[in-house]
């Protein structure tokens, strides 16, 4: 464990923007994809309910 | 009612030849389509010097890419006509129901498209190349690479044309489908001319282009035939 302090960890040896940017985008896209899917399944469940009654 | 026996049976090649001949005859009766592709190439290629200035060294450096990309685009512009007119008037169904395997029929269609749109480019490109002050060696390689390249472009393009048959607004759609598949042909084609311009032997690039052409000859008719069957369902 070579990080001695939290903000050294955050600074990421001067590459903070690039490293956190990459991680942020990766997990951001994943979260966005999951969110889209949740919305889509809600829309289906809702549409089916209407059709059933 | 005529009772005479029909004269003579037609073998596979004569039937296929007639399909090819008919396509060319129909296209020549409507010259506007054929010449449009030809003039697009000439005009588009001549636009680049207007955009970049007439410095000979710059022009000859970018000539292979300019000539190849415009040839590729003009080939692509006429792709949608490959099957759509036959699809619209019902002759495509009749041809598919002929006694020839679909793959060979598709090959004839591709050859007809190549003869009408690819081949003319092979002859005019060296002339346009003079505008970009290419040396005669480079012009020769340009012609040879386009000869093989345009056939490969027609082959690969026919898959896009068959997939988008009967869909409205296919002009741009074909471009999106087919351009990524054109990249190897462009890389090796333009690469051959580039190699010639820096004195390297273009044979490496030309043989790779030949390999891509060979693969296209095998896979493109199969994929196009499958796509046509799907379109005609």
């Amino acid at each position, binding site marked *: *464990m*070579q*990080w001695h302090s939290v903000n050294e*960890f955050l600074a*990421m*040896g*001067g*590459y903070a923007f*690039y*490293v956190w*940017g*990459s*991680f942020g*985008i*990766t997990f951001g*896209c*994943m979260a966005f*994809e*999951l969110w889209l*899917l949740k919305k*889509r*399944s809600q829309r*289906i*469940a809702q549409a*089916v*309910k209407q*059709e*059933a009654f | 009612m005529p009772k005479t026996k029909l004269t003579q049976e037609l073998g596979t090649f004569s039937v296929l030849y007639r399909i090819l001949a008919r396509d060319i005859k129909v296209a020549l009766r409507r010259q506007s389509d054929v010449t449009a592709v030809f003039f697009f190439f000439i005009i588009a290629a001549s636009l680049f010097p207007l955009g970049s200035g007439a410095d000979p060294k710059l022009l000859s450096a970018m000539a292979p890419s300019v000539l190849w990309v415009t040839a590729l685009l003009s080939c692509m512009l006429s792709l949608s006509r490959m099957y759509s007119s036959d699809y619209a008037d019902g002759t495509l169904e009749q041809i598919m129901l002929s006694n020839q395997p679909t793959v060979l029929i598709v090959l004839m269609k591709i050859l007809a498209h190549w003869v009408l749109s690819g081949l003319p480019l092979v002859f005019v490109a060296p002339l346009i190349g003079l505008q970009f002050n290419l040396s005669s060696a480079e012009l020769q390689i340009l012609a040879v690479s386009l000869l093989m390249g345009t056939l490969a472009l027609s082959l690969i393009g026919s*898959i896009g044309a068959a*997939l*988008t048959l009967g*869909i409205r*607004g*296919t002009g741009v*759609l074909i471009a*999106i*489908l087919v*351009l*990524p*598949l054109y*990249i*190897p042909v462009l*890389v*090796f084609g333009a*690469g051959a001319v*580039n*190699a010639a311009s820096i004195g390297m032997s273009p044979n490496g690039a030309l043989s*790779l282009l030949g390999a*891509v052409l060979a*693969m296209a000859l095998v*896979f493109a008719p199969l*994929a196009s035939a*499958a*796509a046509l069957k*799907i*379109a005609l*369902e």
Partner: protein
Amino acid sequence: MKNLDTKTSINWLKYASPKTFYPLAGKLIPWCVIGAVGLIVYGLYIGLFVAPTDFQQGEGYRIIFVHVPAAWFSMFLYLLMAMYAGLGLVLNARLSYMMATAIAPTGAMFTLVALVTGSLWGKPMWGAWWVWDARLTSELILLFLYIGYFSLQAAIDDKNRADKASAVLALVGAINVPIIYFSVKWWNTLHQGASVSLMKAPAMATVMLKGMLVMAIGFWLYSIAVILIRVRCEILERDSKAAMFNLGL
């Protein structure tokens, strides 16, 4: 002559197998999600805390822990999609068409992520947002193939034909992927000489490799979960009868 009585909305369950697949997928999804989260967190732990600083690239190299797995899966998911497409064409099985349709968005997402992280990695290391490196360029072309797949599917209204046409395109694309990669590599060496490939990952300390592999398996479980969720949506959207049955209404 026998009269034909036709029902308006047909009962698909008889012909396709989504009926058995739907609940099975439902059971699998939670496990994949848990596995994915666990492994990704563990991978991050290795990548950010355990892996040492690289003597050449400092801390910037840690981007590989997301960039490389994303690049792997962008390619793998395209080939998986092509496989399901091919299966669909051969067996005329609606379910495998649906699988191919469900895989594509995740594959495209990973391609986009690989491109962005690649450029974020290129900027500090080689000073340019975009580097015409063979792998990055092929990644870009792979994105074009995904775009082609989506635009063809969107352009065709009849679901049946859209499935088959995009399946053919996916297969043609899959055949072209190695050719494109080779031609870009050849183009790269022709123009830049035999310079070292820019994006070669730094000397792989075993712990870095382990970190990347853990992240990769995490991405794999994530992909399975997302694809299964999307396939279930696809099944429900395609047939209201199955929807009512499966939602227990």
